[in-house]
């Protein structure tokens, strides 16, 4: 499907325009440009440029027609290459073997069970499909010939069938795949089997071989004849590659990772992005199997996704912790699997060897090398992962490290109570002042930058926790230090909000009460200083939110008080966008309260004013994504409100317009959770409206779109309660729609998902 052209498209298109007709002065376009143009991937300007060129160059026009015809023939070629006829052409005829039956079929060949005449034994024979290039099979033969390990099916011989196709005969493994075999067995037994498979892959790694397609179906469990115990055997090195030289740097691996058919749930993020695989990609695949062995489900449920959607989901998905799904998982095992499944290859085990060793340690009850990464380590990872946030994270790390040093000085000084030390303390205190300001600023900016990191809430929480712990340590030494109190007040407030978002209302309340207690100590309610006033209003607002579940009356009172503070601020500083934005937030809350009380007129008035304030905020900060989000949410809120009133038709039109704006914003900030959530809410509203107006197909499309966005959010971070509930609602609506359409099977499936 054609997608909107981007600047990158144009740049790519321009870069591919080459002087391809030798001997002429005309700059002609190459096949890449022409193909992308024929596919509708380039923009209007590129098309015009091409058309204008063709006016004087018949050759390019002819090539364009040819490329279009070629693209039209691709499906027929694929159909011929992947014939649905099993067993045709006839089973291969190979001297010395009797073919018994086909065992399976892969991307480049078929595998048969055969009887070898001499020595008499059963073997598996892999035969190339008729028109494939035999070099692919030759590569597998070369790789298997290097490997001799009880956990890897061994090769016997290679040659040509009577009709000239390449084949090789290998050990026949009479067993079942690892997941099937492991079903119902005790956890330790499952993990012991996996450890043996990991050890086999580790052996291959030591010889420079990277498998690149490790998945449960490629690990068969059989009973070792001599020992009588279950042994996993790793198969199918058809996509494997060899390091350019033993011990070569990871970046120098040869080969391509492009096997994308059917194994997406076990693919590493870098492979799904089409980047080269290395030993750590195999580690990720083995970690994915470990995940499934423990939890009983794959990391990525493909569901109704298309292949491209599944690949995109795989490329961005950070594996959830085992304990978030199976809380009974031993912490060390959780840490081992988490390390194998780290998003960044550099954070994983270097190769399968280290992974196997840690599994062995765990099985033997010894301490494991893997452990949960600290928040500091996570912040370091941010530097690699988040280009926008990296500078901030790096600076924050420096600040935290400086804190540690200062704390040591302060503690030493306090203990010794020496005059010289007091002097040093004073110096340290000055540095501390500067560092507190710097850290507060950096932390705010870092958290803001990380808002584009879908699924990063857990990391955000841990970083903020880490900072809070440092502030606590410092406050222990100097409990009345106002700068520290103020900084800690803000940090606790942020932590409270993150806890509330993750459904931990009790912790949110306790953190916010601590924060507000500090606020009451350092801020004055009747202050005229705008910053102080803002902080006070902010504290009231957050405390109100934290108390909402447990003490509605107190929460409402605090909300009113906060609104009053922000009203005063907006009146005295009408051009300070953050003051206007906060007042808008308070008005939205007031609207909700009015609506609960059945007062629709007041609710409309509050929402309208909130929208005006948000629009003003956006005018003041046109480049701010937060301001844009605020304006979009305010617009949506008013339309959502109107849906329940008399002018529902206009509300639907507003929702459709807002949806288009949200799509535009997401085209730039594709992983911004708040925007995704907003889009899902709009889709859900539109689904309901379409259903009510007798348009079930459109309703279904919107409900499914909502489900997809919410599923993306929840898959990235299963702890976000609100989104989980909304996803359930989307599934429920899809179930209802399927039931109404008479598709009971789909209804049951969506019903099950909604639970």
């Amino acid at each position, binding site marked *: 499907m054609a997608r909107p052209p981007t600047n990158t498209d144009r740049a790519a298109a321009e870069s*591919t325009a*080459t002087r391809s007709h030798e001997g002429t002065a005309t700059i002609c376009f*190459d*096949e*890449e440009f022409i*193909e992308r143009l024929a596919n509708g991937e380039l923009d209007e300007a590129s098309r015009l440029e091409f058309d204008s060129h063709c006016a004087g160059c018949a050759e390019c026009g002819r090539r364009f027609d*040819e*490329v279009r*015809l*070629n*693209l039209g*023939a*691709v499906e*027929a*070629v*694929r*159909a*011929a*290459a*992947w*014939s649905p*006829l099993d*067993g*045709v*052409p006839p089973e291969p005829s190979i001297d010395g073997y009797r073919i018994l039956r086909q065992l399976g079929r892969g*991307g480049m060949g078929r595998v048969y069970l055969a009887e070898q005449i001499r020595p008499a034994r059963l073997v598996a024979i892999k035969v190339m499909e*008729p*028109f*494939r*290039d035999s*070099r*692919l099979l030759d590569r597998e033969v070369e790789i298997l010939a290097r490997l001799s390990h009880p956990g890897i099916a061994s090769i016997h011989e290679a040659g040509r069938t009577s009709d000239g196709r390449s084949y090789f005969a290998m050990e026949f493994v009479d067993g079942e795949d690892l997941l099937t075999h492991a079903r119902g067995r005790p956890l330790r037994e499952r993990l012991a089997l996996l450890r043996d498979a990991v050890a086999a892959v580790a052996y291959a790694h030591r010889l420079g071989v990277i498998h690149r397609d490790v998945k449960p179906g490629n690990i068969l469990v059989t009973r070792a004849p001599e020992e009588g115990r279950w042994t996993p055997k790793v198969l199918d090195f058809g996509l494997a590659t060899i390091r350019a030289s033993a011990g070569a740097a990871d970046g120098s691996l040869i*080969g*391509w*990772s*492009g096997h*994308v*058919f059917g194994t997406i749930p076990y693919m590493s993020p870098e492979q799904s992005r*089409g980047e*080269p695989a290395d030993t750590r990609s195999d580690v990720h695949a083995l970690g994915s199997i470990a995940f499934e062995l423990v939890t009983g489900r794959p990391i990525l449920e493909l569901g109704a996704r298309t292949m491209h959607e599944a690949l995109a989901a795989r490329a961005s998905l950070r594996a959830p912790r085992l304990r978030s799904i199976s809380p009974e998982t031993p912490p060390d095992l959780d840490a081992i699997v988490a390390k194998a499944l780290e998003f960044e290859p550099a954070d994983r085990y270097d190769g399968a060897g280290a992974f196997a060793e840690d599994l062995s340690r765990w099985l033997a009850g010894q301490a494991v090398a893997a452990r949960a990464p600290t928040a500091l380590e996570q912040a370091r990872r941010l530097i690699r992962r988040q280009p926008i946030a990296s500078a901030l994270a790096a600076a924050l790390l420096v600040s935290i490290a400086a804190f540690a040093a200062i704390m040591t000085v302060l503690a030493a000084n306090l203990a010794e109570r020496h005059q010289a030390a007091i002097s040093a303390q004073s110096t340290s205190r000055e540095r501390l002042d500067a560092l507190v300001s710097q850290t507060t600023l950096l932390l705010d900016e870092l958290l803001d930058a990380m808002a584009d990191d879908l699924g990063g809430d857990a990391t955000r929480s841990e970083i903020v926790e880490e900072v809070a712990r440092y502030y606590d340590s410092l406050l222990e030494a100097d409990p009345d230090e106002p700068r520290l109190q103020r900084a800690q007040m803000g940090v606790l407030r942020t932590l409270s909000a993150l806890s509330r978002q993750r459904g931990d209302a009790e912790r949110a309340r306790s953190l916010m009460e601590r924060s507000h207690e500090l606020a009451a100590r350092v801020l004055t309610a009747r202050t005229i200083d705008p910053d102080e006033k803002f902080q006070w209003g902010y504290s009231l607002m957050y405390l109100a939110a934290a108390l909402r579940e447990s003490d509605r009356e107190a929460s409402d009172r605090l909300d009113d008080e906060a609104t009053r503070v922000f009203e005063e601020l907006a009146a005295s500083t009408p051009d300070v966008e953050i003051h206007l934005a906060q007042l808008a937030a308070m008005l939205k809350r007031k609207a909700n309260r009015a609506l609960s009380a059945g007062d629709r007129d007041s609710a409309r008035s509050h929402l309208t004013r909130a929208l005006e304030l948000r629009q003003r905020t956006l005018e003041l900060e046109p480049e701010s994504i937060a301001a844009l989000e605020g304006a979009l949410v305010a617009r949506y809120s008013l339309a959502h409100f109107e849906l329940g009133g008399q002018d529902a038709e206009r509300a639907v039109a507003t929702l459709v317009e807002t949806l288009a704006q949200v799509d535009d914003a997401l085209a730039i900030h594709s992983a911004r959770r708040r925007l995704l959530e907003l889009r899902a809410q709009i889709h859900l509203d539109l689904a309901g409206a379409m259903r009510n107006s007798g348009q079930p197909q459109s309703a279904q499309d919107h409900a499914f779109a909502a489900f997809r966005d919410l599923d993306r959010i929840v898959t990235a971070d299963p702890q976000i309660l609100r989104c989980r509930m909304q996803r359930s609602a989307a599934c429920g609506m899809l179930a209802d729609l399927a039931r109404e359409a008479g598709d009971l099977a789909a209804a049951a499936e969506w019903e099950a998902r909604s639970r």
Partner: protein
Amino acid sequence: MEWVTTSTILEELRRDAASPSWRRLFERCRRPIIELGTRLGLTRVEAEDAAQETLLAFVESFRAGRYERERGPLHRWLFGIAHKHILRQRDRAARERRTGRAPDDSRFWGDVPGPEALRPAWEESWERESMRACLERARDECSSDAWQAFELVVVRQAPPHAAAEWLGIPVKAVYNAKHRILTRLRQLRAELDEPC
């Protein structure tokens, strides 16, 4: 592999009744016939028998001058012969199943679709087989790198940059190989079933 179009085969058969060309024709036609046979409930072995009989009947009929190209392309004519022989094979197979000489299969006793219902699948199967012959020919004509580039991006749907990396050639060369071979395939396909 020698490239032989359908008209070449038929021309040879016309000139020389004992020409080995019928074997080439058999190789090209047997898979669609087997697929048709299994679609009509025959086992693989029974369908192979039906394919043999069809081709023998075809050669006999052709030598007797009963094929007229004005009446339509070869594969349509062949479809009629194949359908008739597959139905005969079905009758034999039915007798063997009733007498217990062949394993029974409930699928066999299902409704037998008429020729018009079977024709689209036959056309599809014929097209696939023809394209397969073209692929084999095109593979023999081009360099290993070009073929691998083509196979990676067209058949296995790899991104061109990944194919280029795998083969150690420029992306431009991947696009060139893709289109050169696709163009050649279209030419070969047109030649393969040219009017006899």
